């Protein structure tokens, strides 16, 4: 079992190159810092990223400074930006007993075929992104919306801190849409 600082929470992100998983991991770290976590880190899957290829990223949250920099192998929380990654990305690998996996899907959690000692949270994050108009070149971008789902499903960060962290990244106009998407997803995700 991996060693960790007391009260450390480890989140692993699964996305595809271009979906913004790395940005989501960063925004969550910023939101967590805004929510009062003194120790936060976020890291991309190290190495070259290519559009469309599966990528992972990680975020760690702790009450104190984080001193663990190695890869997240036993996450407390797994976030899946695209349902198609459940098959190819080994999304459930290593999930800590009692952990949670959050999946962007239109299907109910029970139909995802995920079994283990963890909670499965299904949310139509794409629906939230579309509703809020977070669409780039005809494609809905879910990386900000899903932060609302993470806030709802884990309670690790407040939706207000997520909103503030999104505002740090985007211009005012873009931030407004992205925050709206996150809030919608927050409302639609089971606690």
């Amino acid at each position, binding site marked *: 079992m*991996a060693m960790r600082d007391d009260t450390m929470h480890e989140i692993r992100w699964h996305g595809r190159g271009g979906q913004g998983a790395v940005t989501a991991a960063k925004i969550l770290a910023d939101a967590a*810092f805004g929510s009062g976590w003194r120790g936060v880190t976020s890291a991309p899957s190290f190495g070259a990223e290519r559009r469309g290829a599966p990528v992972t990223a990680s975020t760690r949250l702790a009450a104190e400074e984080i*001193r*663990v920099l*190695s890869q997240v192998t036993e996450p407390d929380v797994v976030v899946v930006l695209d349902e198609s990654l459940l098959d190819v990305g080994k999304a459930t690998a290593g999930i800590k007993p009692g952990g949670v996996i959050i999946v962007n899907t239109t299907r109910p959690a029970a139909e995802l075929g995920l079994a283990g000692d963890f909670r499965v949270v299904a949310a139509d994050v794409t629906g939230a992104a579309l509703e809020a108009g977070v669409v780039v070149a005809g494609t809905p971008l879910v990386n900000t919306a899903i932060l609302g789902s993470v806030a709802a499903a884990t309670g690790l960060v407040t939706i207000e801190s997520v909103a503030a962290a999104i505002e740090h990244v985007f211009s005012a106009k873009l931030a407004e849409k992205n925050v709206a998407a996150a809030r919608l997803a927050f409302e639609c995700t089971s606690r």
Partner: protein
Amino acid sequence: MSHAKTRVMTGNEAAAHAARLARVQVVAAYPITPQSPVVETLSEWVESGELPAEFVTVESEHSALTVCITASTVGARTFTATSANGLAYMTEQVWWAAGARLPIVMGIANRAMAAPWSVLNDQQDSMSVRDAGWVQLYCRNNQEILDTLVQAYRIAESLYVPVMVCYDGFLLSHTMMPVELPDPDTVDAFLPPYHPLTVVDPDDPRNIGPVTLADPRPDAEGVARNGYMEFRALHHRALLGALETIERVDAEYGAATGRTWGGLLWEHRLDDADVVLIAAGSLGTQLTVAADELRDEGMNVGVLGIRSYRPFPAVAARDALDGRSLALVFDKALSYGHEGPICSDIRSALQSRTGAPVVYGAICGLGGRDVSPADLADATRRAVADRAAGIVDREPDWINLHLEEDAR
């Protein structure tokens, strides 16, 4: 300090902020993973006018350091950054910058050397130029990257030696963590303007860095001036002087900002430790987690971190290790055919010292091989067992190595 603010940022962003706070005047760099975001950020600030500096978009790392060399020669404060093969490509100029006594500061996002290709972290790149006459400082986290880069200008410009600030690629360069940005006025007060030794003036012409013979040679007035070897001796003296300067600058930075980083070496639970774990960079950070775990198991373990690798704080390391039973040195680099470079330096520091600990080496993390605190704790347990068995000479322990031949 009142205006200091904390933001969550990558190590590369922290490096860029440090260059901005130091008010660098000329930046030149060439893209290479994982360093590139540093110069992308700086070029954005130069284009937006946020950083009033010259940004030269050079065609190679060799030229990047060249631009810093000549800009520094005419008195500009300069910055560049690179990694791995980029550092290797500029190696000729790494030597030139030091021999010319130019206070250039360079960020190194440590990355493994090719071949085979790897963009991931180890420290082979900077360790391979340790002898070039630069100060080399290694950072534990992103805050230390920012603070050390600012300190580096003070060190460099006091001693007229260039400084390399090394931080682990991806593990720090691309990992976000909270970093407090000091107030610009605080940095300005800490870092006075750069006054070059070099004179570039048509009314007082000098020939800088000419052919210099082995022996002293008289000038036009018949006064004997240094030969090459005298200049090298003075350069060495400056590096040795850096031992004191690095500590003093860190302390003064602490007085200005409230943060110090241990000067040459840093320690974690070392006081009564019988077993000392040694490493440079973020590996040292992870060692503290392993040490805490082993302490919980009742093992007297502490950590000695190498912040200044050149100059090597041999006396301080010797004093810190005196009377311990085991020093276990973790290297993310290798002198092929011998052992890890930090391990060799620790051995030489302790040489012929009675009461010195047995020194074991461990090689880990080459080419980005993941190494967790648990792995480090396991390696420590193995070493402690070997020590208890009375083994003095031991081959380096390769952590997490899975050779095919071993599997058969």
